[in-house]
């Protein structure tokens, strides 16, 4: 019974982690950007869905779609207002761009979360679930929403996989992540690829955010932890490796769930952090990292 509980709960949480981290790693893989406003974008999507549902009283479906849309728009805004000006700046040396992008996205994240707290307080917000009620799985009473979350996460990850591996545009994105100069030589504009990737990232962030809002709920305090967890999962899996991120998401998700069940909820995050430190020492490139 306990085993089934851990398996089922861990699966849903891990699926959410996986979806959140996939977008993060995609952006890093293709454009080398570690977007530290990641958590803020997710929270923005949740709050948007909450506002649509709570203030305007639209249906849960419409609210969710609005949340995803806001995630999408915010992502493109992040790219055009913050990341691209720095990437194209001639005043900053190439080797220093990384720290600039990190600092700028951090500041941008702070701005977003402060604005949200100003407008809607920093109370935790939840999104009205699309499906309610509970189902019995292997004798475990599981919220239908949890099943829904897992299914949507994997559906989206599957669609992303198809997009990247089975379409020409996706192939070009994959190629750009291996060798940006190579795709330029083949007549593909890198700027199109970047915009496209940030757009896809926006959808992923929006969906992950809204699902998170339905499943667990977030507040403007969650901004930092959300970014940190995506960052650690991505690094644990190996930067830029999508499959590595998926594996790492499940490792972290299950480790946390097991700790919460078997040891104490108070120590939930500690084993995952220790694992991360060990991996950093033993295998500094992450589980499946190449770079």
């Amino acid at each position, binding site marked *: 019974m306990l085993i089934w509980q851990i398996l089922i709960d861990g699966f849903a949480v891990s699926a959410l982690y996986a979806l959140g981290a996939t977008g993060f790693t995609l952006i890093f893989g293709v454009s080398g950007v570690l977007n530290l406003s990641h958590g803020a974008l997710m929270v923005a999507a949740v709050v948007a869905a909450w506002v649509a549902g709570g203030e305007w009283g639209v249906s849960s479906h419409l609210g969710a779609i609005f949340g995803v849309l806001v995630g999408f728009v915010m992502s493109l805004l992040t790219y055009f207002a913050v990341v691209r000006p720095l990437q194209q700046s001639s005043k900053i040396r190439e080797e220093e761009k990384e720290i600039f992008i990190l600092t700028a996205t951090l500041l941008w994240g702070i701005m977003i979360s402060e604005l949200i707290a100003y407008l809607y307080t920093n109370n935790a917000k939840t999104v009205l679930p699309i499906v309610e009620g509970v189902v019995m799985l292997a004798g475990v009473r599981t919220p239908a929403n949890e099943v829904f979350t897992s299914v949507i996460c994997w559906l989206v990850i599957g669609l992303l996989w198809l997009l990247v591996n089975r379409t020409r545009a996706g*192939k*070009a994105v994959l*190629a750009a992540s291996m*060798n940006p100069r190579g795709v330029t*030589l*083949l*007549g*593909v*504009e890198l700027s199109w690829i970047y915009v496209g990737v940030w757009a896809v990232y926006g959808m992923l962030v929006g969906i992950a955010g809204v699902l998170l809002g339905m499943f667990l709920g977030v507040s403007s305090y969650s901004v930092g932890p959300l970014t940190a967890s995506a960052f650690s999962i991505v690094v644990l899996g190996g930067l830029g490796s999508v499959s590595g991120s998926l594996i790492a998401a499940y490792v972290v998700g299950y480790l946390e769930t097991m700790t919460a069940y078997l040891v104490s909820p108070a120590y939930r995050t500690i084993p995952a952090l220790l694992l991360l430190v060990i991996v950093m020492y033993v295998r500094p490139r992450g589980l499946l990292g190449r770079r």
Partner: protein
Amino acid sequence: MIAAAHLEVKGLTKGFGGLVAVNDVGFTVKSGEILGLIGPNGSGKSTVMKLIMGIERPDAGSVRIEGVEVAGWPSHRIARLGVGMVFQHSRPLHRQTVLENIVLGLLPDRLMRLLPDPEIEARARAIAERVGLSGVIDRRPATLPFADLRKMELAKAIARDPRVLLVDEPFAGLTASETMQFSELIKAFRDDGCAVLLVDHNVKSVAALVDRVFAMYVGECIAEGTAAEVMRDETVRRVYLGGSIETAARPESSFGDRMPFLQVENVSVHYGKAQALENVSLHVHQGEFVSVVGLNGAGKTTLFNAISGMLPYSGDIRRQGRPLRGLTPAAIARGGIVQCPESRELFGDMTVRENLDLGGQHATAEESRERMAWLFELFPVLKARQNQTAGTLSGGEQQMLTIARALMMRPDLLILDEPTLGLAPVILEQLSKALERLRQTTTITVLLGEQNVTFALPHADRVYVLEHARIVWAGDPSRFAAEAGTGYL
């Protein structure tokens, strides 16, 4: 005693992954001697230098500095023992002056040294004087001409009075008079009793300076002796020049277009203060094969990158009369000017087929398929390897894939930058045949950049020679050997 070997290398071996980069290499450099370590790109000469300096750890073999075994030591200890190295590409301290950069080379490796020793500054000034930098001593590196940057690197390397001096490509990018100056500086060290190791591509460029030459090819020694002996050596000649060169040029008048397909007019490019191209003009007719011959650092890659729109330049580059300026590199490539860069830029984790598909992505699926069938005929080995990832291919196969991928784009003009880089002679043959077939069976226009004249001449209708950022010779390939060929050995 007098002729004690300052640097003694024996049985040096180093592999990267499965590839043996250096195999059982041994030589000595005596005090007051200059040894030229030469070899084409990929021959392992730079690795040898890094092994001596301790930047890489040798797998086997010994490196002795005045009898002290240093193989496997960290590089700072080797440096302290009296080895200095002049890097070809360096990153000077941008925010400090030239003087401070030289002072850096003189500092003791101690943490407690918080106040600059006034003596050090005086010594730095003396060194600057010696290498001819005293006029620019208060300037920052970014404002210096290229030759002065090289001098600054030299100054840093000699600051500690090394007994062994390693110099990587001493003359790359320098003008003739600058080369003279630099040679004099190096000779002065030899006369002071220093053992000097010069690493370069060609015998010719260092011949005047070196006492002996050690020639490498694919990780092994192929010849050793005086410059003249090595230049006469059969193996060396074959590696650099191949056999006798047959040319088959078509006269320029046979290309009927009134306006050349590609016109490059008075193009200049600067990297900071260094001039990489100086008023270069050339043209290529529709269907013509044009070779640009030049040594490393002469400006070939810069020229091609300017044509491909990857660099800012002054002057004009026109395609069928329309200027290319303002177009993005990708737009130029889509427009039909496709480059195969020297670095190949393959997608290493994708299969051969996927790489080719990406080349054909602007065409319809049908066109793309036909094109691929034709390419598999041209390069049969790619067909056999089509499901293998590009990163696992051999160097020659990778080069074929690069060319094939570019051809998938149905280019009007194909630019090939050093396709022979690091390839074995057998592979060169295959590549050569493929180019010949292209030339005979299609109307494609090709602009080829090479330092390997054996490869550059047979296919060429016309040849340009690029030297120190300028075109110094242009004409029919058959006249090349007589008029311009001496520098390419």
